[in-house]
């Protein structure tokens, strides 16, 4: 386990995400409303560049929404740009299959620097 300083916190404003290269691993750093997350840039489906996908929300439709479509979790979901599989940025778990999940790396801010442990 090594700490990698990836840049000052100002370079990762809320609602954005960026790819960084840490040794041989590409990592997506996500700032979701002030909370940092890091995921490997490789989709467990067919190994597409997961973190190059769009970050936004998703749809819900249940008894809670009175069985009408609602837009929920804005900013918390990344969609793989290859085949559209959605992942929860905070947990790395896909929304569609218990088998499809990516690991998450711990991220924290140390002295104003975003630091990832891999």
């Amino acid at each position, binding site marked *: 386990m090594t700490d990698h300083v990836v840049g000052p916190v100002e370079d990762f404003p809320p609602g954005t995400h960026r790819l960084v290269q840490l040794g041989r691993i590409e990592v997506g750093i996500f700032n979701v409303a002030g909370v940092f997350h890091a995921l490997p840039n490789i989709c467990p489906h067919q190994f597409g*560049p997961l973190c190059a996908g769009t970050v*936004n929300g998703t749809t819900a439709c249940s008894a809670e929404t009175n069985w009408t479509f609602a837009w929920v979790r804005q900013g918390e979901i990344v*969609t793989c740009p290859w085949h559209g599989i959605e992942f929860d940025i905070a947990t790395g778990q896909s929304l569609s299959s218990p088998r499809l999940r990516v690991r998450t790396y711990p991220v924290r801010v140390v002295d104003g620097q975003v630091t990832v442990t891999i």
Partner: protein
Amino acid sequence: MSTPSTIERTDRATLADMVVVDADVHVNDTPGALAPYCEEPWRLSLEALDGASYPYLQVPGFAPNMRLDPPIPGQHANRSVSTAAEMRAELSELQIDVGILFPDHMLLFAAIPNPEYATALAQAYNRWLLEEWLTREPGLYGVVLACPQNPDFAAREIERYANEERVVGVYLPTAGVNPLWGDRRYDPIMAAAEAANLPVCLHSVTLVSPAFPCQLDQFENHFARQVLSHAFAMMANLTSIVHTGVPARFPELRIVFTEAGIAWVPYMMWRMDKYYNEYRRLVPFLEKRPSDYITERMWFATQPIEEPDDLKDLVVTIDLLGGPERILFASDWPHHDFDHPRAIMKLPMPAAAKRRIMGENALELFGIPAPAGKL
């Protein structure tokens, strides 16, 4: 039946070690591109349609996550490839040596109601394919479009292109075809393909139409239509082809099924064999069981490959339908549900079986020489 390929061990085969032939990639046959190859008066219409915008209500539903510059070779927001040079570069980036070209728009070909227009379009498409795609880059091969609306013309087209080195098969437009392939009116097409030693390749697409089995109008979203469209089209057309005895009446004809995955095949083999037992007297031209024709002269392209939780189940499925010899790798490049070659390479099967699926079967079937530096 081939040797079972279900083994625990995965050989360390890499794409670089084998010929990769992609049995299904798509060229962007826009109206403007085809216009110069089309006879009047139909050319006028194609020219007028050039640059027509994509009707946004045809986007398959709610798509807020779409990236307009997706990180795929070529970055095609519209998931289409417009030139042979682009296609060559993108297939190479995907480590694919040889691509078999199918159309984009002409996937809907069989649903064109006017037989004269259909004939003119088929002629234009075939001219354009040969001129702009098959003579320009290494490793691009094509299938000549057979116009089901005009079988005699289609048979002459097959004869016309039969000796073109880069024409390796006959494309049977399958979405909305009415009656289904197998109907006796299409016998001239089957006869011409057989005589030219060109395999016929069925390719469908998601289409809502009153033609069986495309009545998908009652489904409210694209999930359901996509699930059923290609698979039902292949099941219906396979049954039709068998029920009129096409494989018996055209004993050298080879038949390829594309873009429906493979797991539907064992089910259809068992089901047809069961009713062949009961109803053989209705189809006495079949000299053997339907499954025997399938395991001898039919091939199935992988994409969109099924993705069971345990990939060994897919290897078992391949053995159930006759073994790796029956399977052709296909990516469906550049469409939205394309399969990367890795989707097949990661299956737990021996390297020899992967080599067959990834390329050797297709080289033999289509009569394509192995690309230089491979094999």
